């Protein structure tokens, strides 16, 4: 079964600090995604990747960077965290050409 894990599960950061959210998948999926979920907006795509070494901007990339150093790992980086980035962040993976996406458990980030 698909296994996507995220760390940390909860994070409190200060405004202006750097935050790195990590995602790991053990299914050898090519595609990985970062979404954020906010009340009234549903899930929105921040960055995605088609494979190791590639990152692409999603619908709301401003203020975020992404890194895909290997097939298994996909990180989301907030260089200068702001309170507006307080949210729940979900990572997902999926096989190229297939419809299903497998989601991680989410990371709750609070920026004070």
């Amino acid at each position, binding site marked *: 079964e698909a296994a996507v894990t995220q760390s940390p599960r909860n994070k409190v950061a200060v405004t202006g600090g750097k935050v790195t959210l990590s995602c790991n998948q053990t299914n050898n999926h090519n595609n990985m*995604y970062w*979404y954020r979920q906010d009340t*009234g*907006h*549903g*899930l*929105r*795509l921040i960055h*995605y990747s088609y494979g190791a070494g590639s990152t*692409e901007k*999603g619908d709301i990339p401003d203020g975020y960077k992404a890194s895909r150093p290997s097939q298994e790992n996909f990180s989301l980086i907030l260089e200068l965290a702001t309170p507006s980035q307080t949210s729940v962040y*979900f990572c*997902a993976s999926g096989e190229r050409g297939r*419809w*299903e*996406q*497998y*989601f*991680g*458990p*989410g990371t709750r980030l609070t920026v004070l």
Partner: protein
Amino acid sequence: GQQVQQSPASLVLQEGENAELQCNFSSTATQLQWFYQSPGGSLVSLLSNPSGTKHTGRLTSTTVTKERRSSLHISSSQTTDSGTYLCAIRRQGGRALIFGTGTTVSVSP
């Protein structure tokens, strides 16, 4: 505006009642998925149904592609059905899923 709209926003049921959740979308969808999210939890895929009717357990999804709408019918609801149901589409040539804001279902015993 919102590309995927879900209604109602919330729903309260007595155990055993049926429910119908609606999803309307503004773009041609090559993929449509229904997800379940438990309170404070992650997303679990329920059904992929870009067109026609599909069943799984007590769930039935009907998608009318030309009319850009899909429904999810829950029959004989149970308290464990409580949570948020999300509809998501992938547009033709799209990069990833576009989500609606969900319908929160609460089933009381």
